[in-house]
């Protein structure tokens, strides 16, 4: 399940609410805004996303993960709007019976989410310039 959120991500609450009685292993990943990128001082970020396309694409990612790993559930929340340094940009949670599947699926989930979800990032730098970031 995927959510695009225009309000701050409360990772503690998301993590507490993401549960299953069969889940012996729970892995969370949290991506936060860092203060430097490619040698430049970043002051803030702007994220925008295409919500419906992101949801349909995450559903495909989830189906692929369920085929590959023995997981119970996977969820992802991505923030949009203006974020300051240290704020949470993305949260991923995986529930599984055992830790091997939980770790591996969480890693795959964030990698695929970053590569495939229609979400864009514009960085604002200390020198007043800004630019869209294009991951290869």
């Amino acid at each position, binding site marked *: 399940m995927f959510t695009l959120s225009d309000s701050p991500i409360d990772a503690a609450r998301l993590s507490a609410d993401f549960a299953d009685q069969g889940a012996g292993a729970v892995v969370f990943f949290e991506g936060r805004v860092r203060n430097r990128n490619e040698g430049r001082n970043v002051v803030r970020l702007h994220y925008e996303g295409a919500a419906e396309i992101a949801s349909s694409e995450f559903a495909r990612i989830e189906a692929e993960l369920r085929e590959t790993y023995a997981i119970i559930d996977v969820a992802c929340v991505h923030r949009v709007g203006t974020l300051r340094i240290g704020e949470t940009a993305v949260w991923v949670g995986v529930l599984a019976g055992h830790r091997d599947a939980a770790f591996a699926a969480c890693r795959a989930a964030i990698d695929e989410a970053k590569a495939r979800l*229609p*979400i864009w990032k514009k960085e604002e730098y200390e020198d007043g310039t800004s630019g869209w970031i294009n*991951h290869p």
Partner: protein
Amino acid sequence: MAAEPITVRVEYYAQMREATRKNGERVRALVANPHELYEQLRRQYDFPLGVENLRVAVNQEMSDWNCALQEGDTVAFLPPVAGG
């Protein structure tokens, strides 16, 4: 080339929104697929990216450049993504 013009909804994001100064628009065009639609719009706008650097979504699903477009479809041209 399609036989009849169709009306589609086009959505713009990120660099594409800045290039068009629009979130989206209704376009009537004689095009068969998203590739032809993009090349046609490119004559009107100074898009910063070519199809080789974009992906396309049709009706909110990732699609391909040569899929057949139909009347009423929604098409989004997606710049390189940078989530996370």
